[in-house]
């Protein structure tokens, strides 16, 4: 349980300490990649809670989503259409849905626990 959190903290501290910056032209891609990654992460947590978690789906989803989002943004830039908005919208909606499902599952579990302990 704590190991993933440690990984997150390690990643953040490494990123902050290296003081690495990307050119402003690629900011869009990175932001959308971050969103895609978060979406995959919460999807993974939800799948785990629903006991349908699959390693292959999770890892492939992570990379595939990021690549797809970046590709969409790239295409948008070259077509002059803000296609990255589509990706942001899709990921944003899914992010909220996933979080809502996770919350419900956790709430149900908590309620069950309360009942069983009575």
């Amino acid at each position: 349980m704590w190991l993933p959190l440690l990984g997150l903290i390690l990643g953040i501290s490494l990123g902050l300490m290296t003081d690495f910056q990307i050119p402003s032209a690629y900011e869009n891609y990175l932001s959308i990649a971050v969103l895609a990654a978060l979406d995959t992460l919460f999807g993974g947590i939800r799948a785990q809670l629903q006991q349908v978690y699959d390693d292959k789906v999770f890892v492939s989803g992570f990379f595939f989503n990021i690549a797809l989002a970046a590709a969409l943004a790239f295409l948008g830039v070259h077509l002059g259409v803000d296609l990255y908005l589509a990706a942001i919208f899709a990921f944003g909606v899914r992010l909220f849905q996933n979080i809502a499902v996770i919350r419900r599952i956790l709430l149900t579990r908590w309620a069950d626990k309360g009942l069983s302990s009575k």
Partner: protein
Amino acid sequence: MKKKGISRFTLILFVIGFMLAIQFNTMQNPEQRDTRDVWEIRKELSVETQYHSELLTRIREAQQLVVQYESSQADRPERLVEQSIKQLQQDIGLLPYEGPGVTITVTPSEEAIAFGLTIEPISPELLVRFVNEMNRFQAKAIEIDGKRLIYSSAIRDINGNTTINTLPIKTPPFEIKLATDSIETVEKLVAQIQASGLADDFYLENYALEIGEPVEKLSITSYDQPIAVNYLTEWKEGD
């Protein structure tokens, strides 16, 4: 969750954290590229050096004034205050200026006379250009056709007449007096006027510039009109 799953989760969270941090870094301090070349940097450096030396001069002057104040505190400090006021008035042109200088006469050009052209009054644009150049060449006091130029003097066209301080100036010939700190500066000023394209600019409008000899003592009149001070108020005693 299986062990393998946890390690993958950890790895992916690590990647997410890294990406978040980089995004944060990028948004916090956008990269500012220095696109100046060596020449531009040198130019900026020389401007700063000049500024530095100017500041040093002013500090020295202020220090001298302090020393004077301190040494004269026993006898008459008000005389020094009067002196300071006089110096300030001198600096902005409320008192006549006397110093090394040169007289330039603006006359109709010979060709214009020979062709019998009517001599138009000098244009404000030409005069402004001339004054700007003189300030660039470090003239300390400028008088055009008997009108002293100060920091707020306006050279403009009023109903077809070119005016300075709202007083019309004559159609050429008229005199322009320039004064500086030292005779060397005057010589330099004359050389700079000769080297600059000013004479050509005047010639295009059918005037000629006759530059006189630098003299040790040239008197320039004072500014004789009231100065409108819009944003400063008098310091009342006891406030």
